[in-house]
């Protein structure tokens, strides 16, 4: 990749946008799954040991 080539800013913008959107989606999905898993574990713990 020649970063001094014309329009290289457009290439950089595309990859940066993809990185931000997909990175955000991964972080949101994984964090949501972990949080809900913790909530279910807490609930089951409360049920077994009220």
């Amino acid at each position: 990749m020649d970063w001094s080539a014309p329009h290289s800013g457009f290439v950089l913008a595309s990859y940066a946008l993809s990185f931000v959107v997909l990175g955000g989606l991964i972080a949101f999905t994984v964090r949501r799954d972990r949080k809900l898993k913790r909530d279910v574990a807490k609930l089951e713990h409360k049920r077994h040991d009220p």
Partner: protein
Amino acid sequence: MQQFANPARFLAFSNAILPWCWAITIGLLAAGLVLSLYTAPADYQQGETVRIMFVHVPAAWMALFVYTVMALASGVAFVFRHPLADAAAKAAAPIGACFCFLALATGSIWGKPMWGTWWVWDARLTSMFVLFLLYLGYMAVWQALEEPHRAAPIARIVAIAGFINIPIIKFSVDWWNSLHQPASVFRMGGPTIHSSLLWPLLIMGLAYTFLFLSLHLQAIRAEIAERKLRQARLADIGGH
């Protein structure tokens, strides 16, 4: 396949394969980025701008594929009334919407230097924009109706009816005069792209597919947990 339709079995199965899916995704994305940004040559007409194709095209493929998965899962839920099928469709929607947004945005970024404009209302771009609206509409149904048993039938109809847009997107470049170039990978007679550009594109396509698989499994697990919590809360309210 039928045995994994049980939520408990699905959770055990996804627990076992998720680390492998994420590992393959990271490996493929790393290889794809190296091939896309360093190994692939600049195009003789587009120059370095051709590299946008390696993030734009897989995002567009996934936007179509994820909607197809959503429509299939909704069809299964419609026929068999299986709650896991609804969960699978619901979990796929935000992932597909993100891929669709990326396809539109990166296509627009490519269009400015190549076509001289950010956007044109031609058949391919417009039908892709309609797909984005369908994703948003589908998600809005689940958000608007609080009880899942009321939201599910409407969401299924939106997903199944919206599937008509998928062949329209695919064949829009053949049916109408479009500024967008015709199919050059999945076409009768084989790909028309040189192998030096085709391989990075296919690796990135595979990376995005595994990324979807990993995200989808994770999102279905979250959906199952959310339903469990909701049922527990309702049982608590009923008990008091």
